[in-house]
């Protein structure tokens, strides 16, 4: 039985929400709402004549919602100038910061702001984890001499289905006046986020690498393509979890994960990666909105 189908067999509140989620997935286009504080930051930066372009660049790199919208819009018929935009760095270089600032404003104005009362802390944690995954993805790729920009995006957007799932659940519970405990919400998010990610990655025409890694990072060995990138994404989110919640892990156990071997990291390579923890933390602190 698939994870989502286990919720659709009865009519408990949780199952009712699962059924609506399933229906919503099949019938509507999904959007990643913008966090209110991100929208606020966009307006602040773009209205301030003293804003450094590097601050705006940092903003675009730091938020799942803005990043994914920038990619979509940069690759749209209006802005797409030929080559597919496959990284945020490429978008910055090709489109220029003025245009990207306009895109960020458009995203913040036109898209729903995140409204999920009671879930703010969870969403903040998810986005922090995504940012830490992105930062660790860079370190992994640097060590392997693989594409750093692409792996950053894979880390940033690997869990893109989760905040969308939370937003959808919040909306359905509100519309149906249903109350759900946090555990049930977590179960629903766990059951649906990859399916959501798969749909949005295709709908938003994200680069092929992102479509593969968002779907297969946990099953990297069975990824039909981009196996290495999927494995690196898995490792980046694993190390991000360790950075954010170190109490949940033992470093000496962590480096026994088979993904290190899959990526040809020897024990001392793994140790060197773990030693990047403070750099990753610093990067997350610097970029977090």
């Amino acid at each position, binding site marked *: 039985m698939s994870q989502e189908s286990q919720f659709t067999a009865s009519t408990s509140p949780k199952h009712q929400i699962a059924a609506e989620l399933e229906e919503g997935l099949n019938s509507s286009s999904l959007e990643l709402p913008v966090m209110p504080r991100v929208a606020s930051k966009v307006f602040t930066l773009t209205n301030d004549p003293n804003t450094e372009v590097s601050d705006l*660049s940092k903003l675009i790199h730091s938020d799942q919602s803005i990043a994914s919208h920038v990619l979509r819009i940069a690759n749209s018929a209006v802005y797409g100038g030929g080559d597919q935009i496959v990284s945020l760095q490429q978008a910055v270089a090709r489109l220029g910061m003025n245009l990207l600032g306009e895109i960020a404003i458009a995203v913040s104005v036109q898209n729903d702001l995140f409204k999920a009362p009671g879930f703010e802390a969870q969403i903040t944690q998810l986005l922090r984890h995504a940012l830490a995954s992105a930062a660790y993805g860079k370190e992994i790729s640097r060590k392997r001499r*693989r594409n750093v920009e692409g792996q950053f995006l894979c880390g940033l957007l690997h869990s893109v289905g989760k905040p969308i799932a939370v937003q959808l659940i919040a909306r359905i519970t509100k519309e149906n006046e249903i109350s759900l405990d946090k555990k049930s919400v977590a179960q629903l998010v766990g059951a649906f986020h990859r399916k959501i990610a798969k749909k949005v990655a295709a709908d938003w025409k994200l680069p092929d690498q992102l479509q593969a890694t968002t779907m297969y990072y946990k099953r990297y060995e069975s990824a039909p393509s981009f196996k290495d990138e999927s494995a690196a994404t898995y490792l980046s989110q694993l190390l991000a979890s360790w950075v954010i919640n170190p109490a949940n892990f033992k470093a000496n156990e962590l480096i026994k994960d088979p993904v290190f071997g899959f990526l040809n990291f020897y024990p001392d390579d793994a140790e060197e990666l773990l030693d990047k923890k403070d750099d990753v933390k610093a990067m997350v602190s610097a970029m977090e909105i």
Partner: protein
Amino acid sequence: MNIAEEFDLIVIGSGPGGQKAAIQGANAGLKVALVERERQVGGTCVHYGTIPSKTLREIALTIATLRRNADVFAFTLKDDMEVSTLMRRLDMDLNSYTDFVAEYVNSPEISYFHGRAALEDAHTVSLTTLKGSKSYLKTKYVVIATGSKPRTPPDIEVDHENILDSDSILSMVYLPRSLTVVGGGVIASEYASIFSLLGVKVTMFDRTPRPLMFMEPECTTKFLKDFTENGGEYIGETQYESIRWDSVSQVITRLDNGTEISSDKMLVAQGRIANTARLGLEDLGIKLGRNGTIPVDNNYQTSVENIYAVGDVIGHPSLASVSMEQGRRAICHALGVNPGSKFELVPIGIYSVPELSSVGLSEEAAREEYGDDIIIGRASFDEVARGQIAGIEDGLLKMIVHSKTLKILGVHIVAEGATDLIHAGEMAIINNNDVRVFLENVMNFPNFGEAYRIAALNIVTKRANALDRQPESRVKNLIEQAELN
């Protein structure tokens, strides 16, 4: 220390030198172990160096040819097709070559180990697996063929994202609009010319007045002309004062001549260092040379009798072709087999756009050795029928011979196909032929080999003229000598 297995020969590293040594050993009936630290066999040559850069070069040339002929065949290239096609072909070629190499070394006589090797003593190699477990192998002989890696100057922060080295340059998934190349050597010139042909605005700078200083100046002049025509720029006799990423989209380079260069990406190509760390060589009394290289004698033997080293790890010339031969010769020496006459003539092939290739003495070296007793012949490719047909008219073949014996001393070529064409000259030098060999024998027509015939004609004509005019006045003689050389 428990010995897991005993071998006659352990080869560390599966690049061209290591492969050849392992196969040579196996063919001679030795029990061979081949140790590779990477997941796939082939070494830098296959994964970061020779094969990927040459594949990229072929793709760039194909795209350039298609663009050039688009109007003839009434089609247009989609802009966004280029990069994806380019990268896909690169992956395909790498995979097929890796499979080929794996099959090649996968003989029953060679035991393949994936792990890191280190020398515990002259006859014991430790093997550390990915999981960290250690085992020990005993051996009579060791061949170290661990290759090299890019050298990074301490004041350049290579982040492999915006500032790349020759290992990470091909990790780019899109073509940057602009690229600054630090260096004027082989790797710098190859990538600079390839990316320039792909439409990237390339600026290359180095301390030397021209790139590829060790090549014949006439050839590098032609290389620079092509590079410039493709939109590239070379800034010579300069050094960087600072290189920094602007945290937005540009790498900013400030040169000591006041020039500031801004580019999307940077390639740092400042030489290579040998992969000798963690091998435990110092503990065996093997003193490492410059850039970590292993000193060897003419038989590729280190200061420890049963330990040999071949390929990039011993330094110059760091060519895949030479590494293979070194691997073969090391095994011959270990087994007391005559490897054949010593090869002193090593052709140099530079896979830039256009290719450059060279064998034997340069004009400068020939003058040092023979004074004015040399004659130089040249063939411009616009005189070569095949060059006109193929649209390769900008090439040059320069041949240097001894004026008395007409023995060929050196050949230098700049043109597409130069790295293939050079071997005719190489064989003529090895066989001690005089230049008339290219006039008195039949070559295919039309063919780029015609360049040899044209250069040879040029030489014999100059010589005949020189002989006719010998009795003339001293002044005329000087004029003639000027013409001659």
